[in-house]
C-alpha cells in the first residue's frame, strides 16, 4: 500500500487536473508546444488606442471576445475556460458539482472606463459631470448589472455557481503572488482534512488603459515596444521592465488518498508551500534579500526537502532590473554555488507577466515540465548580465531529468510565495 501521508503526517496533496490560458493560446497542449518552441505571446495592443503610451505592447488574450470590454468580464471568462479544462482532466464530481472549496486569485475589481462612460452618457448632461451626476442616474435598475459585475466577489460567485464548489468561495489577492497563494490555501485545507479536493484558480484579464498607465507611472513596464516579442528579457543585461499579460490557470488538488481511491491519474504533487512578507517598501524588496530567502527556505522546510534536491527553478523572472537582481540574491543565498548550475527559467519571457494569475499559470507549466522532462527556455536572452550568472536555459528548451521544481512568486506589497512541485511523493 502506498503511503498517503507525508513525513510530517499530513495528507499528501496531489494535482489531478490542470487548465491554462495565456497569450500563447488556450489549453495545456497549445501552450506547452509554443512555450517549448520559445514563442512569444507579446504583441502590440489593438484592444484600445495606445496614443501617448510609453508601453504599447502586452500579452493580451484577444481570442476571447468581451464586448463592451471589462477586465473583470475577461477574467471571469478565462477563469471559466481553465476551470473547465482542469475539471475535465480530473474527471471529478459531476457537472456543476465540484466536491470541494474554491480558492480564486483575482485582480482587484472596480468599475471600469467603458462602463463609467456609459453612465455619464445616460446622465445626458453636457457639462459639470461629477460623481453626483453619476449617482443621480445610477439607480432605478438601469445599471443593476454593474453591481453584480463590479463586486470583488463577483468572479468567484460566478465560478462557484457554475462549477458547484462547496462552501464559501475565497477570492484573494497577494498581488503577483496571488496564484501561488490560491494553491497554498487549497493545500492547507486538504492537509487540515477539511476537504478531499480543492479547486484553485487564478485569472487576470487586466490589460486596459488605466491598468497599463498605472504600472507605467510606477516605471515598472518595459518600453521595448518594437518588436514586441523581444520585449521581455528576464535576467538579461538589457532587461528594462515587465510586460503586462493576461492569463489564467486552474488546478484540481486532491488528497492522494482520495485521488487514489477514485482511480484518478496523478499529475504531480504539491510538496511544499512557503510564504514570508517583506516590510521594507511598497514596491521594492528588502535589499538584504532576507524575506525572499526566508520564503524559499520556508517552502523547502514545508516540503521536507533540501535545496540540493531541487533540480529546476521556475523563476518569478519578471524582467524588471530590480526583481531579477533580488531573485538571484535570494536563490544564490539559499542554493550557494549550485545557483550557477541549476536551470532557472522564466515563462514570463514568453507569456508576459500574468499578474494575479502568474503563480498558477507557472505552477501548471512547472507540472508540465515534470511530465515532459523538458525545461522551457528563457527567451530574448541575448546579452547575459554578469551580475546574474544563472543558467537561464537560454532561448532553447532543454530535455532534463526533473524530479522537483521550485516555483517562485513575488509581488508588490511585500508578497513572497514559493511552491515546490514534484512528480512523486517525497
Amino acid at each position: 500500500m502506498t503511503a498517503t501521508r507525508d513525513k510530517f503526517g499530513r495528507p499528501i496533496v496531489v494535482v489531478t487536473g490542470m487548465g491554462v490560458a495565456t497569450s500563447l493560446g488556450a489549453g495545456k497542449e497549445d501552450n506547452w508546444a509554443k512555450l517549448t518552441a520559445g514563442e512569444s505571446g507579446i504583441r502590440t495592443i489593438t484592444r484600445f488606442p495606445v496614443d501617448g503610451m510609453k508601453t504599447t505592447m502586452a500579452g493580451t488574450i484577444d481570442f476571447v471576445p468581451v464586448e463592451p470590454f471589462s477586465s473583470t468580464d475577461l477574467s471571469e471568462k478565462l477563469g471559466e475556460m481553465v476551470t473547465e479544462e482542469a475539471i475535465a482532466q480530473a474527471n471529478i464530481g459531476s457537472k456543476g458539482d465540484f466536491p470541494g472549496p474554491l480558492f480564486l486569485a483575482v485582480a482587484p475589481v472596480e468599475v471600469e472606463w467603458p462602463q463609467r462612460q456609459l453612465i455619464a452618457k445616460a446622465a445626458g448632461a453636457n457639462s459639470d459631470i461629477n460623481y453626483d451626476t453619476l449617482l443621480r442616474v445610477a439607480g432605478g435598475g438601469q445599471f443593476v448589472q454593474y453591481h453584480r459585475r463590479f463586486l470583488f466577489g463577483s468572479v468567484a460567485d460566478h465560478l462557484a455557481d457554475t462549477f458547484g464548489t462547496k462552501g464559501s468561495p475565497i477570492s484573494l489577492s497577494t498581488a503577483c503572488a496571488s496564484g501561488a497563494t490560491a494553491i497554498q490555501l487549497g493545500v492547507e485545507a486538504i492537509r487540515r482534512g477539511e476537504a478531499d479536493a480543492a479547486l484553485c484558480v487564478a485569472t487576470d484579464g487586466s490589460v486596459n488603459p488605466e491598468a497599463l498607465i498605472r504600472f507605467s507611472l510606477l516605471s515598472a513596464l518595459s518600453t521595448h515596444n518594437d518588436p514586441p516579442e523581444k520585449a521581455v528579457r528576464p535576467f538579461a543585461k538589457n532587461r528594462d521592465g515587465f510586460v503586462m499579460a493576461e492569463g489564467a490557470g486552474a488546478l484540481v488538488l486532491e488528497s492522494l488518498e482520495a485521488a487514489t481511491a477514485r482511480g484518478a491519474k496523478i499529475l504531480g504533487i504539491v510538496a511544499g508551500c512557503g510564504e514570508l512578507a517583506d516590510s521594507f517598501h511598497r514596491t521594492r524588496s528588502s535589499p538584504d534579500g532576507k524575506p525572499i530567502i526566508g520564503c524559499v527556505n520556508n517552502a523547502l522546510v514545508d516540503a521536507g526537502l533540501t535545496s540540493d534536491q531541487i533540480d529546476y527553478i521556475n523563476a518569478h523572472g519578471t524582467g524588471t532590473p530590480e526583481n531579477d537582481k533580488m531573485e538571484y540574491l535570494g536563490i544564490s543565498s539559499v542554493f550557494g554555488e549550485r545557483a550557477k548550475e541549476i536551470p532557472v527559467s522564466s515563462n514570463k519571457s514568453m507569456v508576459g507577466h500574468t499578474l494575479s494569475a502568474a503563480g498558477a499559470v507557472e505552477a501548471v507549466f512547472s507540472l508540465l515540465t515534470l511530465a515532459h522532462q523538458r525545461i522551457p527556455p528563457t527567451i530574448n536572452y541575448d546579452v547575459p548580465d554578469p551580475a546574474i550568472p544563472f543558467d537561464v536555459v537560454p532561448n532553447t528548451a532543454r530535455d532534463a531529468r526533473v524530479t522537483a521544481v521550485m516555483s517562485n512568486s513575488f509581488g508588490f506589497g511585500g508578497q513572497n510565495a514559493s511552491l515546490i512541485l514534484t512528480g512523486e511523493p517525497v
Partner: protein
Amino acid sequence: MAETRPMTSEPVEAWITGIGLATSLGEGPDAHWDALNNKRINVDETGFAPNIVHPLAPVSYDAQIPKKGDQRQMEAWQRIGTYAAGLALDSAGVKGNKDILSKMDMIVAAGGGERDLAVDSGILNSDGYGAATPGLLNEKLLNDLRPTLFLAQLSNLLAGNIAIVHGVTGSSRTFMGEEAAGVDAARIALARIASGQSDIALIGAAHNGERKDLLLLYEFDDFNLKNKFETVWARENNSGFALGSAGAFLVIESKAHAEARGAKPLARLKSVVADHARRKTPGEVTTVLQKLWSQLGAKNDAAIITGATGAEPVTSEERAFLKDHADVAIRGTGTLFGHTLETQFPLGLGLAALAISRGAMFPPNDSTGLEIEKSGKPTQIVVIGAGHWRGEGMALVEAIS
C-alpha cells in the same frame, strides 16, 4: 510560518487577545463601550445627501502611523486599517515585539480601488460626452493620475502597509469579496491555529464609507439608505444600508502561545463557519443560517451580534431566522456603525470580545422591539454576517471561565 508539525487530532484552543477598533463611534475599547452604552450613533445625513453615511470619528493617525510619509502613501481606507491594526497589536501587547511579529500571520479582508474623483470627473467632462477622440482617455490618465495612487488602490496594500508600519511579516494574505471576505479571514485564521498550522494571527479589515465611488457601486441596485436614518430592523419600507467607516482588527492566538507570553485573553474564538447560498429562491438564506447555527455548537441562549445590513430581501430572511432566538439579546451593528462590508464581521467579533471582557451585553438600539434588554454576563455570543448580496457566516465567541 512553515507548517512542519504533524496535524493535531484535537483542535487547538484559540483566544482573542487583542482588539483594535476605529469607527464612527471613536477609537479603542473604552470609547466604544461608552458610546454603545449611551446609545450614541454617528450619522451624516447631509454630506452625501440624499445618501446617509456613518463618518469616521476623528483619529490621530500619528499615534499609530508615526511617519507622515507612510500616511501620504495611503488613501483613507488604508490609513484607517493600519491604524486599527496598530490598536489591536497594542491591545494584545505585541506591538514592537519583533520576535512575535515576524512570525505572526496576517489575513486582511479588503476592498480597494479608492478613486481620484477629480481626475475621473475631469475625464468625463473632457470626454465629449461619449464622443471622445481616441487617446484622450490615455492623455488625461497619463497627465493626471498620481503615480502612487495605484498603491493606495491595490487591495493587498492594506496588508502591505501593516507590514511596513507595524512589522507583521509572518505571512500576508488579502481576501476580497465584500462581507464574506471578513468572515473567511477569521475562519481561515482560526482553522490554521486550531490545526497547529499557525500560532498567532492578525486579522481584520477596514472600510471608508465616505466615498462617492463606493456609493455609486451600491446605487446600481439602489442599496444606499436615503433621506432618513432608521435602525436596520425598521427599514422594510426604505430598505438599504448607510455606508460606514471603520477599521476592525483582532489578534487571535493559541492558548498555549498566549499563556507562554503571559497574555490575558479577552475571549475564546470557538468556531467560525461560512457558506454561500445561491439565493435563487426565497428562504435560502434563512435555511443556511439555521444550518450554520447547528454547525457552530452554540447554546440556544447565546446572545447575537449581527451585521444585518438593512438590504432586502436578505434582512427579512435573517429576521425570519432570528425569530427562533427571540428571547436572547440581539444587537445589530448596522444600526450603530452603518454597513462596513468586509469590516462588518471583524467588527462584530471585536464587539463580542469586548462585551465578554466587560461581562455585559451593551443595550439595545432598535425601535421595532427585535432587540431586547438583557442583563447578566454573556457567556456565549454568536456573530452573524449575512452579506447584502452573497455570503453567510457565523462565529462563536465565548467567555473563558
